[in-house]
């Protein structure tokens, strides 16, 4: 029956036949691609989700081994947890503020006036990745004045250095995508000073670059262990390691929650960014 109908269509109209066969074959091809993509996605998702699920299942249990949300409430009560969270948050905000205030004008200046210096910048900003954290902290310790040594913001200053490679690369890509010279000159000819050029013209157009720089910095501060612990501060990663609870569940749960929070922030930023993109493209 189906073949009869098909025959009718085929005889009936050349054009119909052609579109029919073309759309059919392209649909097949498309389906195959979608299958390939689906499999890859599935494998990748499994790779992340299975350990995550296992860890969650492990941590969200009461002492009888049944599912329970009770460990969640225990987190907040765990000794020093809230102060560690607060410290990490403060450090993250300070680091982001310092690194952006330092890097945004510098990068704009370098892109505009010293494009050849970009090579040098690239090399300099990669150094923090190459230098082991221990070397860094020992070096810093040797040169910091005493009043700063006791401050938690010394840690923020060190994180600024560590964040430099990521911030540099995000901003470099963002600035490279703009016609910086023309935008700046257009704004200046309209009477704009440097502050309003940066604030009203460049920052809004660098939004996705700034967001990705911020997220990477945030992730860095919330994940860095070595330097924080050597410098004697109980940030979240240090707390997870040292947690004065005897409860491995809670520690795992905190790690999972940190992961989850990062995911949520990332997704928020991506969707934010997509909205601004759909407005622009």
């Amino acid at each position: 029956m189906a073949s009869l109908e098909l025959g009718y269509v085929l005889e009936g109209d050349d054009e119909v036949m052609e579109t029919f066969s073309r759309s059919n074959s392209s649909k097949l091809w498309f389906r195959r691609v979608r299958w390939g993509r689906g499999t890859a996605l599935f494998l990748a998702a499994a790779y992340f989700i299975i350990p995550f699920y296992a860890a969650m299942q492990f941590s969200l249990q009461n002492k009888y081994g049944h599912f329970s949300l009770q460990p969640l409430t225990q987190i907040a009560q765990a000794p020093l947890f809230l102060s560690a969270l607060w410290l990490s948050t403060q450090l993250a905000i300070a680091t982001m503020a310092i690194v952006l205030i330092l890097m945004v004008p510098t990068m704009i200046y370098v892109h505009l006036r010293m494009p050849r210096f970009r090579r040098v910048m690239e090399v300099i900003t990669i150094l923090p990745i190459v230098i082991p954290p221990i070397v860094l902290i020992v070096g810093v310790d040797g040169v910091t004045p005493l009043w700063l040594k006791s401050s938690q913001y010394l840690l923020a200053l060190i994180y600024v250095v560590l964040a430099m490679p990521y911030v540099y690369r995000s901003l470099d890509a963002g600035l490279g995508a703009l016609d910086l010279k023309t935008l700046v000159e257009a704004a200046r000819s309209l009477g704009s000073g440097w502050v309003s050029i940066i604030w009203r013209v460049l920052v809004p157009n660098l939004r996705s670059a700034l967001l990705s720089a911020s997220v990477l910095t945030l992730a860095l501060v919330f994940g860095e262990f070595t330097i924080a612990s050597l410098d004697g501060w109980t940030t979240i990663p240090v707390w997870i390691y040292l947690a004065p609870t005897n409860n491995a569940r809670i520690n795992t749960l905190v790690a999972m929650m940190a992961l989850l929070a990062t995911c949520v922030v990332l997704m928020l930023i991506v969707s934010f960014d997509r909205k601004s993109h759909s407005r622009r493209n």
Partner: protein
Amino acid sequence: MSMDTQTPPSTMTDVSPPKTGAPVVFENLTRRFGTTKALDGFTLHIEPGEFVALLGPSGCGKTTALRVLAGFERPDIGKVLVDGRDVVHVPAQKRDMGMVFQSYSLFPNMSARDNVAFGLQLRHQRSTPRRARAEELLELVGLAEHTTKYPHQLSGGQQQRVALARALAIEPRVLLLDEPLSALDAKVRAELRDQIRALQQRLMITTVFVTHDQEEALSMADRVCVMSRGCAEQIATPAELYSRPSSEFVAQFVGISSRVAVVRTGDSVALFGRDLKIRGQAPEGVESLDALLRPEDVDVVVASTGLGIITHKSFLGATTRLAIGIGGAAVKADVLSSTADVFELGTRVDLVANARDVLVTASRPAT
């Protein structure tokens, strides 16, 4: 200086205050980039409200001259006077120059209206009159329906019109246009050309327009400054430039394409068997002269005993351009395409000069 950038809002609300722009003087400007001299003793006086085109080949320093006036480049030597005051040390953001760039320069994060209102916002104009003013200007450039669109939603021609409205919004003392039409297609280009000229006449704003297209320069400007290697080669009205180019360089730039050796008798020369008056001043004390011809100065007649042979033929639309070898010279001539069939390659032809007078110059020494 910062005070007079704040024009009171009351004068900003009407669209076309008939006012005269500022006079501009470029005086003996020199600007080097490494070893290249982008400007080399460039001098040009512009009257208030005048539309001057800078015309010249690529790399002759047109953009540099404009950027010096806008404040984006400092000259090594020389002065730039706007309204009689030297502005060389005034930063660009305090010069009140409206500039339209060759590349698209709208702020991508702002709608057309916000782009136009940007300069007004910097001048602390309140948001309601600011928006009204921006919309008026967009209407003026024919974009009344596109005020809320973002740059990526506008065509190239529309973007350049928004850029023009944005530059006009601040009521600039001088309007600077750096090849604003070069990225557009021919039709939009011609349309915008007329629009810019009409607006400029209406606002009587001093305007400097950079182009390398002679047709654009001749059709829009009050005066054209032909530039070569960083200095002004000739500054003249389009009509004068067309009929009396002062040098061979300028001549080439205004459509002269052929030169033919001629014999002089008094104040006329013999060209293709006819006597023609010498236009303007003939070079003194020079015996061997060349006549300078445009393709439309010459008629072509098929003749089996003709001295010329057609060596090349190209279709240009309404006309067809022929290249004719005659007595060692190559002459270009235009014929109507409807009659071009008879002119085959290799056909023998005679040439007839159809002008009453002719430009001459001293012959080039044989090389």
